[in-house]
């Protein structure tokens, strides 16, 4: 009884917050409602006895993905009124896409035929003494190992793509190379000099101005004839 009440509470909150994600005026509030929806989905997993999936959902989606969403949305300078402006114009298109998706879902699920013995399996999905964490691991790493690895490869490709798209060499940045710093010895960096009264460091020949590295001198001033740098500054 309590589980049923809990199910309806979590499901209702999840649907309400999902609706709030699209209807809320402030994008930051939208992301926060999205997080609430994730939490309720995790609670539904818990009710279904899938505690591993529930925790993974919270760790991956709430703990990492949504943080980055929030990060990006907070950094964007969004004009809220402008955001709402296109609503009238785009609403029919959105509704049409939604209707097509709904029709497809109805067709797919309506035409779904269960094998006759599957209902019994659904009620006893796994042996009692194996927890669902171990059961998922057993399946993922044996029967579905290739699909699992391919999913990992897809993510790797996406990651490499993101790095390639955003990576740029910044010549103007000063880099810290800890190996070089650690390799320095007092003998090559320190000199003890007895300085007579009134003598300047340049007259003694111990004035070593910091010499700019040759590649720095060849570079044009940022933004002058290097449009690449200039556009980056603008961002």
């Amino acid at each position: 009884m309590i589980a049923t009440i809990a199910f309806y509470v979590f499901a209702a909150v999840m649907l309400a917050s999902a609706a709030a994600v699209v209807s809320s005026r402030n994008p930051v509030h939208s992301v926060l409602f999205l997080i609430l929806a994730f939490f309720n989905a995790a609670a539904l997993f818990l009710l279904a006895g899938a505690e591993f999936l529930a925790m993974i959902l919270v760790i991956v989606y709430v703990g990492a993905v949504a943080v980055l969403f929030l990060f990006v949305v907070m950094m964007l300078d969004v004009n809220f009124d402008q955001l709402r402006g296109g609503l009238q114009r785009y609403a029919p298109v959105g509704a049409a896409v939604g209707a097509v998706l709904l029709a497809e879902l109805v067709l797919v699920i309506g035409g779904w035929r269960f094998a006759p013995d599957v209902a019994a399996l659904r009620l006893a999905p796994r042996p009692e003494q194996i927890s669902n964490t171990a059961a998922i691991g057993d399946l993922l790493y044996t029967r579905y190992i290739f699909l699992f690895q391919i999913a990992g490869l897809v993510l790797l490709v996406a990651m490499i793509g993101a790095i390639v798209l955003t990576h740029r060499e910044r010549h103007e940045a000063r880099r810290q190379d800890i190996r070089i710093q650690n390799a320095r010895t007092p003998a090559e960096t320190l000199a003890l000099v007895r300085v007579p009264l009134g003598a300047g460091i340049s007259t003694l020949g111990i004035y070593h101005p910091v010499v700019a590295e040759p590649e720095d001198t060849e570079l044009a001033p940022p933004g002058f004839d290097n449009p690449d740098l200039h556009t980056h500054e603008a961002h």
Partner: protein
Amino acid sequence: MAGFFRTPFGMLILMVLEALAILVPLLLLVAYATVAERKVLAAMQLRKGPNVVGPWGLLQAFADAGKMLMKETIIPTGANRLLFLFAPMVTFTLAMIAWAVIPVDNGWAVADVNVGILYLFAISSLGVYGIIIAGWASNSKYAFLGGLRSAAQMVSYEVSIGFVMVSVLLCVGSLNLNDIVLAQRHVWFCIPLFPMFIVFFISALAETNRSPFDLPEGESEIVAGFFVEYSAMTFALFFLGEYANMFLMSASTTILFLGGWLPPVGLPPFTWIPGVFWFVGKVLACMFVFMWVRATFPRFRYDQLMRLGWKVFLPLSLLWLVVTAVVLVLTGWVPQGTA
């Protein structure tokens, strides 16, 4: 009486009592940790520290609490009121609810769940929300910078914490925190997994925004970071949440690497002391290291922090994970856990 606790109402009462049994000592410890930190820092800097309120300044915690309660809660103009007040509550609540799964002695956990360590990891990865929401809702550039710094920092160090946890799990064969401690009966994991122990502890410093990784506060650059606009009890909740998080990270270190409630050697003079004292003692020792580090190291620069997280800890923990797996398979020590 035992029958009463099996009725639905009795179970509710029991749950509340169990929660109080862990939260009240925790909050007392947190209150005294704030005094202890000032005392430890003072001793390390040859000062006296708080010594006026009560004998040896021991009532300082209550004086501070009284002061915080009396002060005015200021909400800046242009702040998002609801989220501004919500953020410290999130920080404080998350620091408290994680304690539901911490076993302080054999089986002494409010909830002895199968996926205890995942729960712990999930809760600690949520801690960033309080900070980032506070930073944004304050409508202040310093607070916002602090929030952004903290978001990037905590997400980065979670990755290596995750790998460290996985390599511990490989040696245990269970996600249950009780099983993790019991797997250390013969040797604490800080010995065979020593590099992971170090990586975990340093990442714990970064995860709790403690010195030398306290860039989200960064008082020399961004005033007080994410909580610059907070005053009175809203500030106190952040402050208490931070210390409760430190206790949580100390408890995680104790459970994962220092044998939880187990005595160092399973022989009579050590086994006479109840496990809960060993647990609290180890947690307090970890807390002392937190304070010691604060008194010792200067703050990292932000690029150094990112370099340490992504270019040192991540490859190191990944490599050690593979090494652990290979050693376990080659020696046939893979635990045959069913959990």
